[in-house]
């Protein structure tokens, strides 16, 4: 993606005046499975969405069938442990809804070194230290 295209997408998203929340987990050594980091992120993110932002539905981009099934079980687990109560969690194919494109662009802007300095508005970041 060229720089002007990046700027265009971020400008467009900024003009939507939405709030974005990013959970980052690190350090992620080569020996650690990314799934563990993802679960840590979700375990932090979901209660924040439900309790601080009154979110009732979260739509995440689906991955493969095995990963999706494991994730649904994980979400049921954190629900049964009381981390969340009413938040509805759904997995959707990435190209099924344009709204899934927004966090994709935000994560690219926040995470890539060469995107630093782009004025992404309304991003709240939380960092988790993986042990």
């Amino acid at each position, binding site marked *: *993606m060229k720089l002007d*295209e990046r700027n*265009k*997408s971020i400008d*467009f*998203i900024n003009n*939507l005046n*939405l*709030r*974005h*929340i*990013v*959970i*980052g*987990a*690190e*350090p*992620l*050594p*080569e020996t650690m499975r*990314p799934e563990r*980091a*993802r679960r840590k*992120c*979700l375990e932090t*993110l979901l209660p924040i*969405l439900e309790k601080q*932002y*009154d*979110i*009732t*539905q*979260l*739509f*995440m*981009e689906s991955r493969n069938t095995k990963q999706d099934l494991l994730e649904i079980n994980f979400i049921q687990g954190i629900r049964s442990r009381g981390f969340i109560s009413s938040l509805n969690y759904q997995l959707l194919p*990435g*190209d099924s*809804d*344009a*709204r*899934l*494109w*927004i*966090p*994709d*662009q*935000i*994560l*690219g802007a*926040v*995470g*890539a070194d060469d995107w630093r300095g782009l004025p992404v508005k309304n991003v709240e970041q939380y960092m988790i230290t993986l042990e």
Partner: protein
Amino acid sequence: MEAKNKSAWGDESMRTQDSKPGRYMVGVSICDLAEHTVRNGFDSRSLRKEKKSIGMT
């Protein structure tokens, strides 16, 4: 009064770089906009092409 649904839309990203610790990120955007509003507002490419162009699958 019935509570209004408030939705968030999320994705993931993983960074790994030589000699630097990796980082896994999950991000969401709180968005009650209609799907077509977002799609029509950014019309330079199809969404799938956008994603592929920045190396995300």
